[in-house]
């Protein structure tokens, strides 16, 4: 039996990555070896595949096609490490262009839905008009629709209007698919802003537009950031929407498309494939590591994306 000497209460947690609670408070059983071993095993299983990819991307073609990446880890000084794979994938083939294309697609496809959704969330939360409840219900209800439902009719519209293969076309497609979630998240936040704030602004002669740009947006930064990261990663990592609406031609193909085509054409050239894969993962990983806190918050709220 364990004896409890001190019953300090755990503070509420804001994110799972901070630990406000004092570790190992008296009375708590220490983690046994079985617990430690299980955690270690899971951590290994979740890191080794990516580690293997990263390590292999620095090995030359002979090594990477004849020995496992772990042999280089075990003999680091006998291995010839090289940056050549990265030089090759970025200068030959379309990977560099694909990297730029991914930026061209992702940045507006993140900003546009946030803008539309912030305006809409403010309108639904603070302006009175006919049809408000119905329109809001419809918009959020669309969360249930998988985007596969949109593909065939939209493709026909796009082919009719020449929007296939254009950046504007894919910005709007990602905007449409991301909006219900964006409005859902931002409405939750903006509707909770204090009422007095708007009243005093209106008394001072501000129009709703000014109130929105000068008050609502700056105050909503946490919610905007949560959704922005969510949408950024979603668009950057998207494959299906880009494949259907943007296509595989080299002047517009994004990283996921280019990477998939390398898998198809040079699937056994592991030294190049691993380098290309890592190029495609660098930016989302940096965004993720830098803004983990906001991401977790968005994840908790955004777990319903359809």
């Amino acid at each position, binding site marked *: 039996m364990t004896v409890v000497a001190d019953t300090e209460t755990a503070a509420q947690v804001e994110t799972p990555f901070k630990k406000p609670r004092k570790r190992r408070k008296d009375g708590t059983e220490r983690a046994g070896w079985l617990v430690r071993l299980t955690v270690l095993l899971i951590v290994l299983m979740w890191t080794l595949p990516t580690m293997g990819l990263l390590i292999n991307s620095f090995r030359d073609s002979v090594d990477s096609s004849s020995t496992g990446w772990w042999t280089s880890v075990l003999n680091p000084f006998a291995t010839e490490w090289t940056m050549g794979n990265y030089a090759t994938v970025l200068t030959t083939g379309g990977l560099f262009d694909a990297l730029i294309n991914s930026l061209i697609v992702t940045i507006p496809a993140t900003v546009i839905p946030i803008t539309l959704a912030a305006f809409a969330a403010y309108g639904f939360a603070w302006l009175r008009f006919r049809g408000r409840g119905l*329109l809001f219900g419809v918009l959020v209800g669309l969360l249930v629709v998988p985007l596969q439902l949109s593909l065939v009719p939209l493709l026909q519209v796009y082919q009719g209007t020449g929007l296939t293969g254009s950046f504007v076309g894919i910005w709007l497609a990602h905007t449409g698919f991301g909006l219900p979630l964006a409005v859902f998240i931002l409405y939750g936040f903006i509707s909770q802003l204090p009422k007095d704030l708007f009243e005093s602004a209106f008394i001072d002669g501000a129009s709703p537009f000014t109130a929105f740009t000068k008050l609502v947006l700056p105050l909503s930064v946490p919610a905007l950031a949560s959704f922005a990261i969510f949408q950024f990663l979603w668009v950057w990592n998207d494959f299906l929407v880009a494949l259907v609406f943007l296509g595989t031609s080299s002047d517009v193909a994004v990283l996921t498309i280019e990477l998939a085509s390398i898998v198809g054409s040079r699937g056994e050239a592991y030294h190049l*494939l691993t380098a290309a894969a890592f190029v495609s993962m660098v930016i989302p990983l940096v965004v993720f590591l830098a803004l983990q806190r906001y991401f977790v918050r968005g994840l908790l709220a955004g777990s319903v994306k359809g």
Partner: protein
Amino acid sequence: MQAMTSEQMGPKIIRSLLVVVITFAALWFGLGFLSDPVAFQGMPPTVSKLIQAAIAIILGVAGIWALFYAGNSIIEALPARATDLLRPYLFVLPAIAVVGLYLIYPTVGTVVTSFTDVPEGEGFFYNYEQAFTSPEVILNLRNNLIWLIIAPAIAVVIGLIFAGMVDRIRLESLAKSFVFMPLAISFVGAAVIWKFVYAWKPEGQEQIGILNAIWVWIGGFLVDWGILAEVEPIAWLQAIPINTFALIAIMVWLQVGFAMVVLSAAIKGVPSELTEAARIDGASERQIFFRITIPSIKGSLLVVYTTIAIAVLKVFDIIFVTTGGNFDTSVVAVRMYQEMFRFRNFGQATTMAVILLVAVIPIMVVNIRNLRRQGIGA
């Protein structure tokens, strides 16, 4: 601002119309310039690519704001009553219009097409009859079902075990970050990572995929001890039926981080009075976990399970990139893509989409209702 005389209104309308015209002209010329093949000739390809990128990003980002600004300046130039009446719609209608075009119209269109895009003389249910009598579609549905049964359950169980255990470990946040990291990786990227893990070399050659290396190594002992007659490396992505499970493992690997984060937050939210009281009564950590923690986080467990289930039903990238749907691994979403692009059979493609919708809706309803109850997000 609100009370405007007619003399003031004239110039204001002209000014606001000017704003609108300039906005549209800028967008029009900017986009035309971008798609103009001559405009960037003579520059080094890298430079022209970067310039195009900058223009495109600025156009996309500034354009949306310019449109709202232009719309607002028109509305504010109108008589005060009209302004008040119309303004809310300036805020909400753009969003409604976009989802109308991108979600409502196509969803209706998909459902209609699945019933009407049939050969002459056939009934409305032709596509569905075709689908449910086709052995391939049945196989896809079976695979979807296998995914749905296995992937969410395993992801939730591992996520829960890890969240529960890591809570008591010193390097908690570091360990979590490692498990969480795959969430930032695309399905395509994960497919490449795992293709490398599953890499196969013929027997006798050195294995470069870590899974086959481990398998051959362990198998060697088993052969020595007489448990196995011989050990061969396994082509994990080609060998039926093991390949479907190998693909499911990729999905689990991607989703456990999500499960872990949500469940870990939920576990930390369990009132410590409850666990302290149980501890005083002599409960072991394991008893506390199963009798107190798990019942307290039922809601979160449901959210995580349903969310992963929906992602699993729509799985496409992982299969498309690794096996292309060959070797009996295809699912409904992959089939839909192939009907659409390879066979140009929009009737079958839309039927596959409707099947997905029908499968997803009940799970989604449970999910949203549960989220509402928990007050997350809304």
